[in-house]
């Protein structure tokens, strides 16, 4: 007997099922490979980008510094390279360009040339490409910008990007790029002396970039650099390691979140796909019991039969995984990168098929398919030929519970009895179908919950936690004609009609053997009008005078309970790497960053000098935020005034890329659920085709025949939905926990409407899936299906 021919004929015969299994595998593979490719792609790309253009490890800012001053650095351990540069701002009324000088032989933060030629002559400028696009600038254009009030004219010679600005957040605005009014420019160093002549600005350098040797602790390095040319030098302002450098850290945080999401969710997708394959295989093989019996009776070896049925599942698995894997890794990253490119500028990133991801996906799919097929035919193969030629016994005598009540059971119609026995006599199979529905519902709930939670975290943060109307950010220092003055916020006059509360924020780093987390200590007066700290039950917490309130995430990550000591290292350069510790007094719910709260007194008692560079304000009815902004406009010590609404919308913007990802997952979950439920229906009907034909022969109308299957599917869906909701909530928690990052942790929030929609979709799919049932009932040929006893 030619088994290959049988295989092909079998496949053609149950093509509907084959297609749906393939579809499920395609979807599983698509999301798995798509999301993981995107994450790998981003990761690889940024590593390569940073590597190729040699991103700095440390940025240090001075009011002025000379090459003479930096002599001492040559003897310091851990420095691979350092470069000095000059940074200043050029403005028009609306636009701001942050301009760096660069040397032709620069080794750190090298420019990625997109078009044109890098500036060689004074006043030639290379502009960031996003700014160019947003403002319609061409090569050779002349730009007139003011420096310290004096107009200067630049000639655009190049469009560039730079790894230090993968995201260009304006220093005086919200937390997202505004390419039309804020850009980055690079001029040849030869510009600076001439600029100085025109405008009178200092010709000295004010910034040093460092590249550290690999495996150097950057925080230690920054401390030793400070010792050398830092704190003793009056011109020293502050320094960053790249982990705190906005462009770098934001993207890294996003990539991390992406990575987390990209494996949790797709793995579940894949498992559902595997389960579906198993269910489908089991049913195909069950309906072929007799054929298997005959093959065995004919003396076909067990191995060959097994291979035959393995082929059955391997074909859709290989095909599905290959198609899904390849399409997924081309299509999904494309869509996601598109969304990412709103926030990040990653020149030259393009999607490609990452075979090292696709091939394992195919292998895993094949393996799962083989296991599924093997498990499903193992039992039959081990039966005697005679036994497997007989149709499978419904477990005789084993009645369902409901039959105990004779009166009730007797009153049920035969149809209902068939349905109930179908489900309860084949508990395991019914269970598997239910699990399919459960998984689908759980996936959809998780997807929707992700969306709800993102919204909730923003709402809670801005409506429940932040009670102020806006914040005023003071500049760290002001400089006038090269003379630097550190800001004393208390000396800045405030407008009438606002309440104020000064807040000091201290960057910190906490680490154990495996991980490091950055956050900030917020020194708050116990002033609830401006800022409410809440615990997980939304109870308000008072700021303690003798310890810290830490975030839930920090407490989870570093195993901190109330009463424990917490030890953190301060990262702001003015504290020189000092480590402080205190008791954990309470644990608070925080979503957007990792903050530790305490009172200013508590810190001052540790001999720390606080610099309140932020001021919360509450506005009375006599004055508007715009008035306040106008008021501070001319105050040099004030860097920016941001309303809570602006803050909120900037965070909403920030979550956009995540929203795209979540949206994609919701769509995926919906598609997968449909495929799963559809498949279950198709399998059900295929399996019961003899019952179907018999009912037709007996004279049951099409609707009545259909109702047997519809009711069964509906009942399975009901059971699946009942189980799916709690499973969905568990899954949601697991997904939220794994996808939390230091920048964003998700509250366990899911709207009732999301649960209702997920359940309704499951029912909707079930009803949709009845269409093939009806079609099949119409098509079934009574005379033919009764001829075969199978």
């Amino acid at each position, binding site marked *: 007997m030619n088994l290959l021919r049988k295989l092909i004929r079998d496949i053609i015969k149950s093509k509907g099922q084959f297609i749906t299994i393939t579809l499920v595998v395609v979807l599983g593979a698509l999301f798995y490979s798509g999301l993981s490719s995107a994450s790998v792609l981003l990761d690889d790309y940024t590593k390569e980008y940073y590597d190729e253009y040699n991103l700095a490890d440390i940025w240090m800012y001075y009011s002025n510094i000379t090459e003479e001053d930096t002599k001492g650095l040559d003897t310091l351990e851990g420095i691979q390279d350092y470069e000095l540069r000059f940074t200043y701002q050029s403005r028009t009324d609306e636009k701001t360009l942050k301009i760096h000088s660069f040397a032709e032989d620069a080794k750190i933060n090298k420019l990625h040339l997109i078009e044109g030629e890098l500036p060689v002559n004074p006043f030639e400028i290379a502009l960031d490409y996003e700014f160019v696009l947003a403002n319609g600038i061409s090569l050779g254009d002349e730009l007139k910008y003011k420096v310290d009030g004096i107009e200067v004219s630049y000639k655009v010679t190049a469009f560039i990007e730079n790894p230090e600005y993968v995201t260009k957040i304006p220093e005086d605005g919200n937390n997202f790029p505004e390419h039309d009014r804020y850009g980055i420019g690079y001029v040849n160093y030869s510009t600076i002396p001439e600029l100085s002549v025109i405008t009178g600005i200092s010709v000295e350098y004010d910034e040093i970039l460092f590249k550290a040797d690999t495996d150097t602790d950057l925080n230690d390095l920054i401390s030793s650099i400070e010792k050398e040319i830092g704190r003793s030098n009056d011109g020293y302002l502050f320094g960053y390691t790249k982990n705190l450098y906005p462009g770098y850290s934001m993207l890294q945080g996003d990539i991390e979140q992406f990575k987390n999401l990209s494996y949790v969710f797709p793995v579940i997708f894949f498992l559902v796909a595997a389960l579906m394959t198993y269910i489908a295989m089991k049913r195909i093989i069950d309906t072929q019991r007799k054929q298997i019996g005959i093959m065995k009776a004919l003396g076909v070896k067990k191995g060959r039969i097994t291979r035959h049925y393995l082929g059955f599942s391997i074909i859709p698995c290989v095909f599905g995984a290959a198609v899904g894997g390849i399409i997924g890794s081309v299509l999904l990253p494309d869509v996601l990168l598109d969304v990412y490119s709103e926030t990040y500028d990653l020149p030259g990133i393009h999607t490609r098929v990452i075979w090292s991801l696709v091939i394992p996906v195919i292998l895993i799919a094949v393996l799962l398919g083989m296991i599924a097929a093997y498990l499903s035919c193992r039992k039959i193969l081990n039966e005697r030929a005679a036994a497997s030629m007989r149709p499978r*016994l419904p477990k005789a005598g084993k009645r369902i519970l409901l039959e105990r009540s004779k009166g009730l059971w007797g009153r049920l119609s035969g149809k209902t009895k068939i349905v109930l026995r179908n489900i309860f006599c084949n508990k395991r199979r019914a269970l598997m179908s239910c699990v399919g529905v459960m998984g689908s519902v759980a996936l959809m709930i998780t997807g929707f919950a992700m969306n709800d939670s993102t919204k909730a975290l923003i709402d809670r943060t801005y409506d429940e936690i932040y009670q102020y109307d806006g914040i005023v950010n003071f500049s760290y220092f002001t400089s006038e004609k090269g003379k630097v003055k550190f800001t004393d916020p208390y000396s800045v006059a405030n407008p009438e009609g606002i309440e104020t509360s000064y807040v000091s924020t201290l960057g910190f780093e906490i680490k154990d053997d495996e991980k490091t987390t950055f956050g900030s200590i917020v020194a708050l007066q116990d002033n609830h009008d401006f800022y409410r700290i809440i615990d997980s039950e939304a109870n308000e917490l008072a700021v303690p005078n003798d310890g810290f309130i830490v975030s839930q995430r920090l407490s989870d990550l570093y195993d901190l309970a109330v009463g424990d000591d917490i030890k953190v290292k301060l990262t702001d350069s003015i504290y020189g790497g000092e480590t402080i510790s205190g008791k954990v007094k309470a644990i608070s719910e925080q979503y957007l960053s990792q903050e530790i709260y305490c009172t200013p007194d508590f810190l001052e008692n540790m001999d720390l000098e606080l610099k309140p560079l932020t001021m919360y304000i509450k506005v009375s009815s006599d004055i508007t935020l715009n008035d306040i902004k106008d008021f501070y406009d001319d105050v040099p010590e004030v860097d920016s005034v941001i309303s809570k609404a602006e803050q909120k919308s900037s965070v909403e913007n920030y979550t956009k890329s995540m929203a795209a990802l979540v949206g994609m997952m919701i769509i995926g979950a919906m598609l997968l659920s449909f495929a799963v439920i559809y498949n279950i229906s198709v399998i059900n009907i295929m399996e019961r085709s003899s019952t179907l034909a018999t009912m037709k022969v*007996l004279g049951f109308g099409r609707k009545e025949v259909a109702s047997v299957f519809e009711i069964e599917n509906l009942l399975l869906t009901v059971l699946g939905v009942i189980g799916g909701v709690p499973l969905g909530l568990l899954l949601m928690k697991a997904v939220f926990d794994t996808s939390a990052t230091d920048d964003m942790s998700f509250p366990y929030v899911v709207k009732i409407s999301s649960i209702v929609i997920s359940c309704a979709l499951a029912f909707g799919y079930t009803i949709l899936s009845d269409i093939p049932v009806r079609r099949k009932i*119409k098509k079934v040929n009574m005379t033919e299906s009764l001829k075969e006893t199978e």
Partner: protein
Amino acid sequence: MKNIVQFKRVTKEFVNQEVKVKVLKGIDFDIKEGEILLVIGSSGAGKSTILNILGGLDTPTDGEVIVENQNISNYKEKQLSEFRAKKVGIIFQSYNLIPNLTALENVIFGSEVKTGTLDAREILGKVGLGDKCDKFPATLSGGEQQRVAIARAVAKNPLMILCDEPTGALDYETSKAALKLLEDLNKELNKTIILVTHNLALSPMADRILTVKSGKVESIEANTTKKSVAELEW
């Protein structure tokens, strides 16, 4: 005796892969109320096809099938299933019981499509399965299953009972018992029975015998020497 069924120039063509096969080539005969009509003929002659058309499982390509003054040959699907529900009980060589229903439930289920049915338990008693009412088909022997199928067709109390080689899978004794059952039914309830068989030895039990050959009626003869099943041997 009145005619309840008339076949008029009934033809049937099957189209298989663009090849037309004419299986019935103009069949004319009628069925009288309360008779046992035996349909015989060689394999492939078209017996099952005739029975399927009569049972409303299939429609003729051409010609008329009149059942109780209604032409069922151009019935739509819905009318056909109504027809099957109200007028016919069908027994096949394969028993086609619903595996998930007990013997009794199978019989009752078959009657759910119609009113004026007989008591299921009583009929099962008549076919000798009074004590096996609550067994599932898979736990019954082939003969027992066929008797359940017969009981199902009978309990429905249809106009006519169609049997396509009902005893094909049964042994001698069981076959005989099953046929006896049909015969009793015919006698006691005056049910019309159409019986397709290969077994010419059954001829004496029939009132008339229809012989089909290559899609045509070769002959239709009345049996003058009717014997009861018990007297037959083969």
